């Protein structure tokens, strides 16, 4: 069975500092991996995805994520955090099987202090 874990409920970072939001996964075979963001009182928005190819994926709002197969991780990163990045971030995974569904992690609340 596939699963995804976000080990940190909350991440606190000072504005201008680099940020990392962690995600690890378990899936049979190769994974599809996604990051979504949920701003207060707004719906979920797609940030980026890894399907195949380069391990470093660049997405919206200056975010990027690195696929690490040996560590089964897909951590979200940004070189310089903004206060406006404060939101709830979800990692998601799916397998390659046509029967696979997308499973979401429990979410990590990112708080950027001025």
């Amino acid at each position, binding site marked *: 069975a596939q699963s995804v874990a976000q080990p940190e409920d909350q991440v606190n970072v000072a504005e201008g500092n680099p940020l990392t939001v962690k995600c690890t996964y378990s899936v049979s075979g190769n994974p599809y991996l996604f990051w979504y963001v949920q701003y207060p009182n707004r*719906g979920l928005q797609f940030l980026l995805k890894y399907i195949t190819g380069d391990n470093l994926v660049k997405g919206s709002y200056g975010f990027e994520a690195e696929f690490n197969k040996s560590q089964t991780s897909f951590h979200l990163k940004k070189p310089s955090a903004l206060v406006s990045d404060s939101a709830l971030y979800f990692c998601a995974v799916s397998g390659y099987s046509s029967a696979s*569904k997308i499973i*979401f992690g429990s979410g990590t609340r990112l708080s950027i202090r001025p």
Partner: protein
Amino acid sequence: GAGVSQSPSNKVTEKGKDVELRCDPISGHTALYWYRQSLGQGLEFLIYFQGNSAPDKSGLPSDRFSAERTGGSVSTLTIQRTQQEDSAVYLCASSFLPSGSSTDTQYFGPGTRLTVL
């Protein structure tokens, strides 16, 4: 439409009543998902429709929950005999799956906030 729409946006009901939540996916999207999100919490998978295949109902929490997708487009999530623990935001998402693909980016609707008194 430009995106996934859901109705109603808010629903307040009394314990024991039935409710229906509607989702209109993006035109042409073959896959449709329902999730449940409790206040500030993660997304709980409920059900997944993909084309003409039998839906994946493995996430439905009880037999009070059911969903259908008519004509491969609009979907309705029905909760019978609602309980207070059913209170949550119910999110719908759709995606386009080209032939041979198993998944792709999901586009989410704004959700329906259900409150069971």
